[in-house]
């Protein structure tokens, strides 16, 4: 009976499609997971294509090999045992077999890819895909790697600038083209404190300085910047505290930054 052969072929095609779709989604999950891992460990993300392709090939092959009418019968109980019996006796044209084929053809109208697919699983996998995509983007935008995760976690998240504010380059180009840090913070202590920390790193002798006993007025700060391409820069503490803005405006700005620095 040609019509049943044709119908069974279509069912097989649907099964292959569903199997390939599942394999592809699983492989994409693998791809994103490995991309995330490789990025985290500062490895070229392009290598994540290797496990992706390997998994896609193997899983597709295994899925296609194991595909069977049982998968349809599970979702369409009316077809239980009928479908595979009809498929195994497709060449028979006696009345009993033909009756069974007609029976199966009627019930096959209920079969579609959407019915066979495990919707819950598909939705959760796609959600996981989106989640991983987000993580990949988040990690790359914030340059999160294995060597800067712990310090950042210790310092905590800065509400002003983001996750890795302290570890990033502190110099910013201001709106007026001058390089200054005061536009970022607006707090004299933070500028001095940051400068002091960097000074300690640069000069081993000054590591003996007790930061708690820091006296802002007494200390003459000599800051030698080490950012690449900028050369040495000297900034005297007294110079950095000079402001040409009137007191009222200073107060407004100061209050603003104080309020946003508050936890």
């Amino acid at each position, binding site marked *: 009976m040609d019509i049943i052969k044709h119908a069974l072929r279509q069912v097989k095609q649907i099964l292959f499609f569903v199997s390939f779709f599942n394999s592809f989604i699983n492989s994409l999950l693998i791809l994103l997971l490995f991309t995330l891992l490789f990025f985290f460990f500062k490895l070229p993300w392009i290598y994540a294509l290797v496990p992706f392709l390997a998994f896609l090939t193997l899983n597709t092959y295994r899925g296609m090999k194991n595909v069977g009418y049982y998968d349809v019968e599970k979702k369409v109980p009316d077809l239980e*045992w009928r479908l*595979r*019996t*009809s*498929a*195994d006796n497709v060449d028979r044209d*006696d009345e*009993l077999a033909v*009756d*069974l084929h007609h029976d199966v053809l009627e019930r096959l109208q209920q079969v579609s890819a959407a019915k066979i697919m495990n919707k819950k699983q598909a939705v959760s996998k796609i959600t996981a895909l989106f989640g991983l995509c987000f993580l990949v983007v988040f990690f790359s935008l914030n340059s999160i790697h294995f060597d800067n995760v712990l310090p950042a976690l210790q310092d905590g998240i800065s509400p002003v600038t983001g996750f890795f504010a302290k570890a990033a380059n502190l110099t910013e180009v201001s709106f007026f083209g001058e390089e200054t840090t005061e536009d970022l913070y607006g707090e004299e202590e933070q500028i001095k404190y940051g400068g002091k920390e960097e000074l300690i790193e640069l000069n081993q002798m000054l590591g003996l300085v007790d930061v708690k006993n820091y006296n802002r007025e007494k200390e003459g700060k000599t800051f030698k910047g080490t950012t690449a391409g900028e050369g040495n820069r000297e900034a005297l503490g007294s110079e950095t505290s000079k402001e040409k803005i009137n007191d009222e405006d200073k107060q407004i700005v100061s209050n603003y930054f104080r309020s946003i620095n508050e936890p």
Partner: protein
Amino acid sequence: MTTESIQKAKEAFEVIFNEVGKVVVGQRHVVKQIIIAILTDSNALLEGYPGLAKTLTVSTLAKLMDLKFSRIQGTPDLMPSDITGTYVLEDGKGSREFKFQPGPVFANVVLMDEINRATPKTQSALLEAMQERQVTVGNHTYKLEKPFFVLATQNPIEQEGVYLLPEAQSDRFLFKVKTDYPNFNEEVEIVTRYTEFDQKMPDLKPLLKKEAIFKLQELVRQIPIAQDVRKYAVEIVKKTRERKELIEYGASPRASIGLILAAKANALLDGRNYVTKNDVKEMVYPILRHRIILNFEAERNNFDEDDVIGYLLK
């Protein structure tokens, strides 16, 4: 043969079950298995304690199916010619001649009561009839009328002075049907029916003709079966040969053939035109229990054949 035929067959057998139920209380599984043996053109062994309506069940079924019924009582002095028939000297017109007198085996349904009490020689005469569907007496061979079924009974007690059926012979029976005691309500019903003063045996009329039985036998073989189910049946039988921890000797391929046929007949009785694994599971116990020989380990643990079969199915 269409699905309609299957539905009609199912309805006919429901009526047969109800009619048998008018005479025999309960024992539906026994009736079902005997009907399956008939539909698969095979023979069955009935084992049960005395007084469990084994003979009554078989004779009632034979009446309902319009089949000629005969009964042979197995005794140690039973001779093969008592079963097959013999030549007797008859006075003809002016001469005497030997005429063949057919034995009780020349019937459609032969009930051999207590086959294990007959001698091996007598048992083999019956078994030849079962296998070949013919009887050889002297130089002549006489074909047996179709359909032909042998239902042999065995008493599980009184094992002294009996001749146990050899395994090679018991293999020829499709089923070993176990009859059991009725439950409390069934026994109350039995007592009510058979102890009242106005007891009347129901008048049973034939429901199936021989031609219908032949068609049903053909229908059983035509029922389509999936390759999965076939492999499942063969797998179970193969396990009986491989699981040496409990089974000394397993079942032969005859068991696989019987299991598939019985599963098909079970599907027919259920009104289906396809076979499922449950059909196989339902038939596996009566098919295998007389074909496996348990080893000492099983006996030591007090396992019987049904326990071992249940273990194989897991």
